[in-house]
């Protein structure tokens, strides 16, 4: 399969449509939910077309406006981008459905004075930033997309307007800006040393030299901060906990994965010849520590949203284990495939879990885990969704989480680093403990049910659908792993050159 130089129009549209939709919604200011839903359907359809095209025609490349690099912007889409784009579209579509119920004008408005209208434009900006990031083919475009992503995420966190949310947002923005500056400095080092910014060009130029090590270290540090890798995770729980539920779902499911995706691209394609086994151990060991630390903190969380947020810290830890597992075993796709699978399985499960937490909070006015007695009686759909999402978070068969952890475990046992296998198993046991903590309370039958407000049905059903998607992922593994490898030239350059 050869790359087409003109590129598919969907590539530009998938970024342009959400941007235009955001501006249009800001200007119109009325019927924002209707406009937002129409735009969401359109973007998801465009993403679907692009994925279809990648599967049929192979990787796509496009020079925006006919300007080529270095002054123009190039977009690139291969199986890896297609997978991320699809995950984003699926989660984002259901976040939109959920958001249209959560920010509905019949819902108690006290918490969101006039700010509910701002959810839609900011959410569209966020989606545009995610798509732009995924399709970027050079390191500087990634910087711009990261900044747009950070700004829109922080703005969405502040929608609830309460002091804890604003305080969490300021800390989040500070971390995000430090991370971006560190990344930008790395980009500057790269340009100073290599004289180019494109992924493809860099991959053929970079060799183990001092400037490329410095650039890799600076860029990776910045990206780890944005992905909330332990011990730089301190900003995540307050931000994800205090944000409105649809926003928490999007942040935990998609935004932390976006910077992980950039790390993956950098380590396994751009810097493929620069990374060493010792360097790859650093994110791996931090990831292993995150699995344990995040799970233990989730176990002692007082509130449901807090528990789900700490669970994200733990699950991000699994993702970063791909670096040692992938670098130590360069001929195998197992570890990378496992990490990508986890990205999607966790995205579906975590978005569903945050939606359920939001439903509980909306229905009872609180989400204290100790006081969740009788929730299963009153919200069976939501709690079933939480159970299914929990199965995937723990990694039990036949969920997508199981496939992902199975692949990572296999990769860990193939090489000398069996210590990571022990952490993967321990993390699963800890996840079982914190998920069952919720159910040991909520299944307790009570006769005097507390105050209960009915919530829109779509808030319950979108959570259930997403959790079932995380289950479905477990059943389609072979096709998916094949698709992810479409257009591998950008992945494992060194391996391709070493091969026949």
């Amino acid at each position, binding site marked *: 399969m050869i790359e087409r130089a003109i590129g598919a129009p969907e590539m530009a549209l998938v970024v342009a449509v959400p941007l235009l939709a955001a501006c249009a919604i800001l200007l119109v200011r009325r019927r924002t939910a209707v406009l937002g839903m129409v735009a969401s359907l359109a973007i998801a359809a465009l993403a679907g077309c692009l994925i279809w095209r990648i599967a049929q025609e192979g990787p796509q490349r496009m020079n925006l406006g006919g300007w080529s690099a270095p002054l123009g912007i190039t977009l690139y889409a291969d199986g890896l981008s297609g997978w991320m784009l699809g995950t984003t579209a699926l989660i984002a579509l259901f976040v939109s459905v959920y958001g249209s119920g959560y920010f509905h004008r019949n819902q108690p408005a006290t918490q969101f004075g006039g700010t509910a209208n701002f959810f839609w434009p900011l959410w569209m900006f966020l989606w545009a930033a995610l798509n732009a990031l995924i399709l970027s083919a050079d390191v500087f475009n990634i910087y711009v997309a990261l*900044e747009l992503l950070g*700004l829109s995420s922080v703005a969405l966190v502040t929608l609830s307007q309460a*002091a804890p949310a604003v*305080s969490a947002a300021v800390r989040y*923005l500070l971390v995000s800006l430090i991370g971006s*500056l560190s990344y*930008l400095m790395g980009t500057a080092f790269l340009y100073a040393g290599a004289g180019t910014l494109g992924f493809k060009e860099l991959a053929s130029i970079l060799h183990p030299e001092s400037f490329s090590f410095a650039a890799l270290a600076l860029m990776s540090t910045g990206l780890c901060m944005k992905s909330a890798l332990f011990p730089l995770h301190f900003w995540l729980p307050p931000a994800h906990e205090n944000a409105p539920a649809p926003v928490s779902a999007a942040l935990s499911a998609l935004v932390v994965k976006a910077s992980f995706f950039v790390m993956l691209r950098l380590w396994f394609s751009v810097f493929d010849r620069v990374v060493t086994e010792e360097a790859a151990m650093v994110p791996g060991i931090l990831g292993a520590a995150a699995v344990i630390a995040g799970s233990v903190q989730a176990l002692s969380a007082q509130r449901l949203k807090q528990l789900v947020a700490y669970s994200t810290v733990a699950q991000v830890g699994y993702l970063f284990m791909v670096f040692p597992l992938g670098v130590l075993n360069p001929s195998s796709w197992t570890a990378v495939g496992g990490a990508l699978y986890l990205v999607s399985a966790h995205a579906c499960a975590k978005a569903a879990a945050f939606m359920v937490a939001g439903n509980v909070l909306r229905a009872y006015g609180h989400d204290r885990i100790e006081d969740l007695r009788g929730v299963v009686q009153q919200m069976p759909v939501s709690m079933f969704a939480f159970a299914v999402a929990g199965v995937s978070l723990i990694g039990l068969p036949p969920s997508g989480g199981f496939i992902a952890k199975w692949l990572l475990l296999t990769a860990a046992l193939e090489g000398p680093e069996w210590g990571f296998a022990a952490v993967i198993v321990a993390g699963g046991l800890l996840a079982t403990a914190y998920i069952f903590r919720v159910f040991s309370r909520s299944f307790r039958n009570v006769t005097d049910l507390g105050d209960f407000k009915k919530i829109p049905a779509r808030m319950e059903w979108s959570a259930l659908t997403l959790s079932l998607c995380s289950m479905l992922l477990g059943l389609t593994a072979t096709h998916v792993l094949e698709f992810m490898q479409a257009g591998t030239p950008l992945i494992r350059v060194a391996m391709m050159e070493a091969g026949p």
Partner: protein
Amino acid sequence: MEPSDLYGSVGIALFALGIYGATALGQFMRQVLALNVAGTGVFMFLIAIAHRAGTPVPDPVPHAMVLTGIVVAVSATAFILVLIGRLRDLSGSSSAQDDRDD
């Protein structure tokens, strides 16, 4: 040592100083100022690497990056200042220590 090397080194030093300040200082306002110092350091480094030996014409790509970076830095700083102001209205303090809840 060429002048551009000097500018580049000063840029890196400013970046390091700014990042140290942004992580070590306790107050939000000071952290924002430190971040802007770090940003200036990155921009200075980028401007320095635009110098090409033997030709008076600088490389336009780093300049384009600096321009983009400045736009991002200005908007991010404005946004974070608004947030800090809002936080002061809500809680009567802009210090990072006063409301640390863990």
